[in-house]
């Protein structure tokens, strides 16, 4: 049933102009910022002076998986409730976990795919147009590991926080804002690493991904525990 839910979510995204616009516009804007921050740097810039612009660029890359899916995640349950589709869905044999997993995966996949695509395009453009010193800072094993493991972990965490809030909120915008807010501490940690306050390494990124993944697992546990059909359909229930 999870693939059924994912397929339905994708079909809905495709026909939702707001989601399509957000998915398309945000990466373009971020790419422009990345290019603006780093491509115009002089060829012989000292490494210390690179810390801020490159750090900002890499931070923006990690912001994408957090910011992008919050719209979808916050809408996950509230949207069903607003459309009146929650009740017929909940009367089918679909389990709470399958429904939530389908919605979470359907939000994680595009967020991660867009983040990876953006990174690939950024690195590709950098190879062509940016100073070699910039390329040497963004096309590193550390950064590849960060994109490979930390990005999906961040996306999963942000989405599950959004779904968690969506389960208890009745207002879509409030849920969206709360989801972004709840993800900020994690972004703060990522910022410390990207700005070299904490020295980055592949191992550190992998460890950070593990920690964020654990937090995401905690959110998943909480979300499945809080999924109360009575409360979702009425204002009663635990």
């Amino acid at each position: 049933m999870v693939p059924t839910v994912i397929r339905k979510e994708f079909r809905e995204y495709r026909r939702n102009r707001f989601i399509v616009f957000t998915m398309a516009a945000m990466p373009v804007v971020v790419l422009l910022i990345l290019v603006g921050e780093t491509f115009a740097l002089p060829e012989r810039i000292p490494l210390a002076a690179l810390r801020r612009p490159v750090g900002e660029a890499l931070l923006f890359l990690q912001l994408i998986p957090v910011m992008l899916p919050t719209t979808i995640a916050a809408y996950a349950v509230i949207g069903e409730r607003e459309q009146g589709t929650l009740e017929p869905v909940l009367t089918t044999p679909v389990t709470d976990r399958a429904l939530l997993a389908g919605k979470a995966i359907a939000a994680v996949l595009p967020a991660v795919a867009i983040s990876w695509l953006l990174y690939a395009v950024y690195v590709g453009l950098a190879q062509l147009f940016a100073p070699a010193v910039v390329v040497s800072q963004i096309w590193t094993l550390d950064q590849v590991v960060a994109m490979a493991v930390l990005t999906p972990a961040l996306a999963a965490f942000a989405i599950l926080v959004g779904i968690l809030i969506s389960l208890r909120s009745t207002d879509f915008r409030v849920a969206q804002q709360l989801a972004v807010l709840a993800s900020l501490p994690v972004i703060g940690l990522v910022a410390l690493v990207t700005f070299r306050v904490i020295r980055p390494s592949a191992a550190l990124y992998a460890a950070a991904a593990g920690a964020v993944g654990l937090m995401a697992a905690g959110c998943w546990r909480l979300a499945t525990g809080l999924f109360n059909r009575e409360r979702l359909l009425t204002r009663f229930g635990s």
Partner: protein
Amino acid sequence: MLSTETSTVTRPAIRVDGLTKRFADRAAFEGLTFEVAAGEVFGLLGPNGAGKTTTVRVLSTLLPLTSGTAEVAGVALEAVNRPEIRRRISVMPETPGLYLRLTVRDNLEFFAGLYGLSRSEAQRRIEQNLALVGLVDRADDLAGSLSRGLLQRTALARALLPDPAILFLDEPTTGLDPVAAAAVREIIGGLRDRGATVFLTTHRLDEAERLCDRVAIVNTRLVSVGRPEELRRRLFRPALELRLGRALLEPAALFESIRGVNRWTNGLGTGVYVLDVTDPEATAPEVARAVVGIGASILRLAEIGRSLEDVYLELVEDEW
């Protein structure tokens, strides 16, 4: 409550005993006891706030019951059995609950997937049910472009996808114009002819009268349950309405002399009388002969028909 059950219930699809649902201190309904036979169209009637929708939600496992016991499609209504019950039933809520950005077919494919139907079986049932509700040519239209009546028909097609043992319909014609409502009623009538078990809530009494084999009237408690004609018989004694060209001078002397007339009262208007009788068919000719015998002109002599609405109003008004 007038009575409990009739002998027609032999193989219950739903059995409810003392079922109660409370939200905090407020009872949505309490002490409901009834049975629904397999293949029966059973109507739950009641005013707004009577607990009809909550009853459907409890029986369809959406809400937990507070007390009492129930069996749905042969399975005890307990937390552990909810998935099994959901596999055997289907619900059409009051609002169509369709994804408006998806096509009719997309909606049906999604729900077919949730019921675990294989792709080929899903396609077969989708085509079959689209034909049943007359939406084959609108299958690829966005649900958001359909009228309320067509949305309701789509919701009905969706509810029929799993070929459920019991179909719950919550106010299926609410908000529909008369033509759309008639179309939905016709489809439900067709389901009855196919032997489906349908549990229907409505406050449209004409609809219940036309569609339901039996009805339960509720007002947070069960007020009465039975076939519509049984309820009528229980509540109302048979009566004749006699309309004459002019008022009788001594009606008491006349009516008390007619065998089979138990009681008489003045009706609405001059020369109109209501006669309580035991057997309308046997007594009407006696009345006609007696009235003509004294030289009065009969404008009308007929049995007073009682609708389900009369039954409903009698029962529900007693409750208020």
